[in-house]
């Protein structure tokens, strides 16, 4: 097999390209000056289902007022006009309320899925959507295990709607609107690590009041929103069989194989071509 100039440049070029794009396969902020992720702890045992979080969210983000009220047996969903909803559940310990919004995963599926970095995990921990980059492919929606991103199917200039932890407010030094306005103090904002400590403390101080499980501590590789509840989470409409590995891990193996194939395939193919060419001097058929 002879390596001519063109082949040489091709292999070198391919290797260079794959090395250049092959690193940093994980979503998430760059290493270095890492700030600790912020998050929100939602203690559902304190929530009264008053929907103040819903209306303050709508107000802060310029969205229409909430529709409907929490009712046991009815599941209201977030949609392209409502970034958070509170639902009521009949649990083994009476009626309970659960607020739903983006979980702000530590390693979000949506940001790993996004091919333009429109879905972006900020250093502060909020997962935000950037319209100037998004091409509307909706792969984030396919990938998100919590079905959070919503798409404006009836718009010629559609946006992806989801909770962004009030990122603009965070930058101004304020806290998310839902947390600030919650009259029952069911929501607290802080560093994720501190929130987990606080949640543990509440469970330890009142073991009979709480289920010994912080939803979001390990689920989907850890999330920015953390939940406390009085009953097992499957009674409250949560997916408790969700994996504890992060979701981008699922496609990591495939992505890691790409540079390998990119380097090996051309070499192997060229080798086979040369080998079969020499074996068949004049033959017309070798089927």
């Amino acid at each position, binding site marked *: 097999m002879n390596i001519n100039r*063109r*082949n040489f440049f*091709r292999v070198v070029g391919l290797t260079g390209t794959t090395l250049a*794009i092959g690193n*940093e*396969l*994980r*979503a998430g902020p760059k290493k270095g000056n890492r700030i600790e992720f912020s998050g929100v702890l939602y203690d559902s045992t304190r929530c009264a289902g008053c929907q103040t979080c819903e209306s303050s969210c709508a107000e802060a983000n310029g969205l229409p007022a909430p529709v409907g009220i929490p009712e046991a047996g009815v599941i209201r*969903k977030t*949609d*392209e006009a409502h970034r958070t909803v509170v639902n009521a559940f009949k649990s083994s310990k009476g009626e309970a309320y659960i607020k739903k919004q983006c979980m702000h995963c530590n390693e979000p*599926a949506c*940001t*790993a*899925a*996004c*091919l*333009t*970095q*429109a879905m972006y995990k900020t250093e502060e921990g909020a997962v935000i959507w950037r319209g*100037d*980059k*998004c*091409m*509307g*492919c909706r*792969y984030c*929606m*396919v*990938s998100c*295990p919590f079905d959070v991103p*919503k*798409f*404006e*199917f009836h718009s*010629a*200039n*559609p946006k992806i709607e989801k909770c962004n932890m009030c990122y603009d407010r965070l930058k101004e030094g304020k806290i998310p609107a839902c947390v600030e306005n919650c009259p029952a103090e069911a929501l607290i904002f802080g560093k994720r690590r501190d929130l987990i400590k606080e949640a543990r403390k509440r469970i330890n101080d009142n073991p009979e009041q709480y289920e010994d499980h912080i939803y979001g501590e390990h689920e989907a590789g850890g999330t920015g929103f953390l939940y406390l509840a009085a009953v097992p989470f499957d009674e409250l409409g949560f*997916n408790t*069989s*969700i*994996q504890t590995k992060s979701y981008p891990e*699922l496609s990591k*193996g*495939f*992505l890691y194989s790409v540079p390998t*194939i*990119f380097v090996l*395939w*051309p070499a192997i*193919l*060229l080798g*086979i*071509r040369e080998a079969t*060419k020499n074996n*068949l001097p004049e033959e*017309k*058929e*070798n*089927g």
Partner: protein
Amino acid sequence: MNYTAAKDNDGKSVWKFLAEELKPRGKFLTPFNIISIPVMILGLVLIVIRFWKGIGSITNLTQEVPWGLWIGFDVVTGVAFAGGAYVLTFMVYILNMQKYHSIVRITVLNGFLAYLFYAGALLLDLGRPWNVINPIIGNSFGTSSVLFLVAWHFLLYMIAQLIEFSPAVAEWLGAKRARKILSGMTIAAVIFGITLSTLHQSGLGALYLMAKDKIHPLWYSEFIPVMFFVSSIFGGLSMVIFEGSISHKVFFNQISEENHKAHNGIITGLAKICAVAMFAYFFLQLLVFVHGKNWDLLNTPMGYWFLLEMFGFVLFPMVLFFYSYRRNSISLIKVAALLTMIGVIVNRLNVTVIGFRWDAAIRYVPTWMELAVTFAVIFTEIWVFRWVINRMPVLRESPSWVNDKD
């Protein structure tokens, strides 16, 4: 028909030549035209509505099922069928199987147009298509995304296929020097193209890896990429058999005596390859199924559907391929190819649409308008395909001034 002698067209200016070539040729009111023209016009109207009122105005997509027929069929299935091009270039240029050389051009053309149109159909599905260049140029590279890889590969592979096909264009235009340069690039394009195809055929499956909780467990496994790759081999070759049998009727007068005679041998050869690839695929599926321990799911409606796919549309056509290859029966091979193609469609739709959110309260069913746009895209592709074949030396012999085969 003296278009073969597109010669040097030195007498005419290039523009005059092109203007003449653009004119329609042959009978206009054929059954195909009568059916396809209204569908294409309808599709165009629907596309205008879609860009005016949003994707939801003509599709049934929901917040839970954001990808429907246009992705699941047009893109994912269409690209699988276009896989014939990389398999055939592998056989001819890498394994030096000269027997299949006469169908390389039409297969590459078919593959190129499939990518052009089905990846082009992707633009219809993009909510914000004006940002489509973001992953290609600029500073918005989402390198952790499988879709980023697939997008780049589509683009690069279309260029590779265009290079592979370009000698035919040069022969049509009578550009001797250009042809020489372009055909010199064929091998590089082929090797690059096969590498790209390996990765994006499997990449289309890898897109769905993160949708672990949303796809029916009988179809979800971490081996979706491998499955998609292997099934693109026999899916693509079945398309070559299917398309070849139609082309050989429609473009009968363009094909030389010699190639007509060789065609049956080519088809039986492809049938054998299909059978072996399908055997490997069936075995892989069996391993994955046993490994997945989903025995209890078999006795459900989705389970019956899974068994039908595996036995009716993989194992049965595989046996049929083996049998008809032994019997040397061309018509049975065509039946097997058709069944295999249905099987690939069923498989891709099971992963992307039917098994996706199979447990949702409201199931996604495409609207007639989604179907109409899909058919409009397919018909437009066939129009372009026919236009090219009627003008360029795709099926017919190259002009006499060509003395080396690419």
